[in-house]
C-alpha cells in the first residue's frame, strides 16, 4: 500500500489559531501512523486539540504546518474540491451531535453519501436498506431523525458514515450525547466494524469507550503524552478483578 503500511500517516502536524499573544496551538507537532484495521482512541480533556486533530485527518480543516497522508496520498495540499471528493470516497465522519439532516428520513440520510458520490438512486437506496438492516434499524428506515432515540440516530449516522466504504472512519465523541445503553449499542457496532477490518479513529473523553480500542493516545495541550497498546490483553484475569482468585 505504501512505505509505512499506515492508512493514515501524520507528520509534524500543526494547527494554530489566532495570532501574536492570542496564538493557540490546537495541535502541536504531532506524528502518528494508523495501520489498516486498527481502532485508535484519542483521549484528553476538552480543548486539548483532539477534535481538531480528527478534523485535520479528515480534511475538514487545513493544518498550519505538517502533512497528512491518507493511503499514501498527501491531503493537506489538496484543493477544497479535491478534498470534498476525498471525503466522499475515503473518509466517514461520525459526530457527537449526530448531524443527521432533520428533514430526511433515516434511509434518505444513509443514501446521501452514495448520491453525492454519483451513485444511481436505486443503488443508493439498496445500499442504505442493507446497512440499516445490518444495524438493526430496518423498521426505522422511514422515520425522521426526531422520531428516533439518540442511540438510533447515532447508529443511522454511523451507517451513513460507512455507506461509501471509507478507508477510515473518524468519530468525534460519538457517545457524548448518549446514555449507557445507547453507548453500548454504538460500541457494539464499532467492534463489529473493527472485526470487519474497518480502520477507526475515535476521539472521546470516556475511558470506557477508549478502553475498547486497540490503541489509546492521550493528548494534552495539542501534543501526545501517552501511547498505549490495549489490544490482545485478554489475560483471563477478569475473575481477579472481583477478588475471586483469593
Amino acid at each position: 500500500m505504501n512505505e509505512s503500511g499506515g492508512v493514515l500517516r501524520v507528520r509534524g502536524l500543526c494547527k494554530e489559531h489566532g495570532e501574536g499573544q492570542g496564538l493557540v496551538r490546537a495541535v502541536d507537532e504531532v506524528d502518528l501512523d494508523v495501520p489498516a484495521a486498527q481502532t485508535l482512541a484519542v483521549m484528553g480533556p476538552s480543548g486539548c486539540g483532539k477534535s481538531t486533530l480528527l478534523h485535520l485527518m479528515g480534511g475538514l480543516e487545513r493544518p498550519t504546518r505538517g502533512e497528512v497522508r491518507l493511503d499514501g496520498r498527501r491531503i493537506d495540499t489538496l484543493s477544497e474540491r479535491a478534498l470534498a471528493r476525498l471525503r466522499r470516497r475515503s473518509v466517514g465522519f461520525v459526530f457527537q451531535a449526530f448531524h443527521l439532516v432533520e428533514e430526511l428520513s433515516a434511509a434518505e440520510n444513509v443514501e446521501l453519501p452514495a448520491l453525492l458520490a454519483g451513485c444511481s438512486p436505486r443503488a443508493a437506496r439498496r445500499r442504505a436498506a442493507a446497512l440499516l438492516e445490518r444495524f438493526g434499524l430496518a423498521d426505522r428506515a422511514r422515520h425522521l431523525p426526531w422520531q428516533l432515540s439518540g442511540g438510533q440516530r447515532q447508529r443511522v449516522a454511523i451507517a451513513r458514515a460507512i455507506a461509501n466504504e471509507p478507508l477510515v472512519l473518524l468519530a468525534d465523541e460519538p457517545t457524548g450525547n448518549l446514555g449507557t445503553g445507547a453507548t453500548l449499542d454504538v460500541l457494539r457496532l464499532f467492534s463489529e466494524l473493527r472485526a470487519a477490518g474497518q480502520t477507526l479513529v475515535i476521539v472521546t473523553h470516556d475511558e470506557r469507550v477508549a478502553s475498547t480500542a486497540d490503541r489509546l493516545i492521550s493528548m494534552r495541550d495539542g501534543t501526545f503524552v501517552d501511547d498505549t497498546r490495549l489490544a490482545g490483553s485478554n489475560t483471563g484475569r477478569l475473575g481477579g478483578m472481583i477478588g475471586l482468585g483469593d
Partner: protein
Amino acid sequence: MGRVLLVLRLVAADVRRHPAQAAMLLVSITTATAMLSLGVALHGATEKLYQNTREATAGPDVVAYSPDTRRTTITALQSLRQAPGVLAHSGPYRQYYTTLTAHGATGAAVVQVADPAPGPVDRPLLTSGGWVRPGGVVVERGFATALDVRVGDHVTVAGRPLPVTGIAVTAARAVYPWAPGIGPHGGPSDGGGLVWAAERDTRALRSPDVPVTSFINLKLRDPGTARAFTTRDPAIAPAFEHTWVNVRAWQDVARQDSVMLRDSQPILVIGSWLIAFLAIGGLATLAVGRATAQTRRVGLLKAVGATPGLIAAVLLAEYVTLALLADALGLVAARLIEPAIVNPSASLLTTATGPAGGTVAVTTVVALAVAGLTTLGPTVRALRTETVAALADGARQPRHRAHLTRISALLPTSLLLGTRLIARRPGRAFLHACTTAATMTTVTGLIVIHAQTATGYPGSPMANDLRDAQQHHVILAVTAAMIVLAAVNTLTAAWTTAEEARRTMAVARALGATPGQVTAGLSAAQVLPTLPGALAGVPLGLLVCLLFSGPDTTWPPAWSLLAAALTVLPVTAALTAIPARIAARRPVAPTLSAEAP
C-alpha cells in the same frame, strides 16, 4: 425607568449585532412609504400647484380667444370689459403661431405681444431675470426647461436672434406644451411653448403666413361662475354675432394641466401596492429567519424573570422604532422626489409645504402595520414557547417531503441540495416566486410603456419627449425601486436559507459536497422558484396594462417579454451566489463540533 432603559439597551444591542437585518428592514419600509406617499400626494397635486400659481400671478378667471386681429374682433373682445360680473381685464393682446429656435433645436411656440408692464390680470411671475423689453424676450418656464434655455441665452424668434431677459410662469395658460390656448384659425392646437415679446420685436411676424389670435384676460367677481361666462350668455352674445370666440375658464386650464399626470398616477398607485407587497414579503422572510434566534432570546429573558409584557416590548420596540424611522425617511424621500413627478413641465410654481397630515398618517399606519404584521406572528409564537423548550432548541419539528426528496435523488448534486432546501421551506420558495412575479409585473409594464409610439405634437419634439419622459421616468423609478427591493429580498432569502441550512450544508460538506456544489445548491434553492414567478409576472403585467390602456396600444413583441422573464434567472443566480458563496466558504468544523443537535 430602569425597564425602559433595559428595553432600549436590548434593542440597541440587537441592532448592533444584526446591522444588515436592520438595514434591510429600513430599506424595505422606506421604499414602501416613499412610494405610498407619492401615490397619495399625486391626488390633486397639480390642482394645488395650479392654485398657487394662479394666486401668485393674478391668473385670469376667463380668457377669450378670437382667431384674427380685425377691428370688429378687437371691438367685440373689448366689449367684454363691460360684461356683467367682470371686475378687471388686461388686453386684448395678440399671439403669433410660429417657431422658436434655441441651441439648434426648433419647437412650436406662440409669441404673445406683451406690454412694457403687464396689466392687472395675468401678471406673469418672473422666476429669474426681468420683464420684456424691446430686443429681449421672456420664455415661459416649462418651455424654457424643455429647451434648456436660461436668462442671457439667445433664442431665434421670427428669424431674429434675441436675448432671453427672463423666465416666468403664468396661470393664464395650461402647462407646456398646451400653452397656445386655441390653435391657429380657431382650429385644434398642435401644442407649443409660450414666449412674451415686445410689440416691436413681433413686427416681423405680421405676415399672412403667420396665424395670429387675439385674446383678452378677464377677472370675474365670482371665479366660481367662470364656466358660465360664455357667448350663450345674452349679455355677451350680441357682440360676437359676427366674430368667432373661444372662452376658456380657469377650471379648464387646471384640468388640462392634470392630463400630464393622468398616465403616471396608476403607475405610482399600483407600483406602491406592489412595493408594499414586496416589502412585506421581504420582512416576513426576515422575521421568520430570525424567529429561531428570537425564540431562544425570549427563553433567556423568561428564564431571568422578564414578564411577557416586557418581552413583547423588547421584540416589538425594535421593529416599531425602525419602522418609524423608515417612515420618516420615506416621507423625506417622497418630499424630495415629489416636485419632479407632480410638476414635470416646470410650468407651475412648486410650494415648499411638507406632506399633508393625512399622508403622514397613512404612511405611518402602513409602516407600523408592515412591521407589526410580519413580526407579530413570530413574536407571539416565541412568547408561547415553553421556557425550557425555547432554551433547548428553537427549531420546530421538520416535515418530511418524501416526494420532492425522491425526485431530487435523480438530480445532480447541486440541484439535489437545492431542491432539498426548498423542500425544507416550501412557503419561502412560494413567497420568493410571488416577489419575482410582482417585480416581473412592473418590468412588463415598463416594456409595454416603452413600446408605445410617441403621440403627437408636430413641431414640438421636446414636448413629446417631455410627456413620454414623464411616464417613462415614473415607471422607471417604480421599476428601479421594485428591482432594488426584490434584490434585497433575494439576498435576505438566500442569506436566511444559508443560515438555517448551515448545519445541513456543513454535513453535506463533511459527506463530500464541494464548496462549489454547496454554493450552487443554495443558489438553486432561490433560482428554481424564480422561474415560475417570472413567467407568471408577464401575463399579470399585461393584464394590468390592459386595464389602463386604450385600443391603440402597441404591444411589445413576445420575445422581448420572454427574454426579460428569463433574464431574471441569471440575475437571481448572480445575486444569491454572493451570500451562498460566503456561506459555503465558511469553515465547517466549528458548526459540526457544536454540541446541540
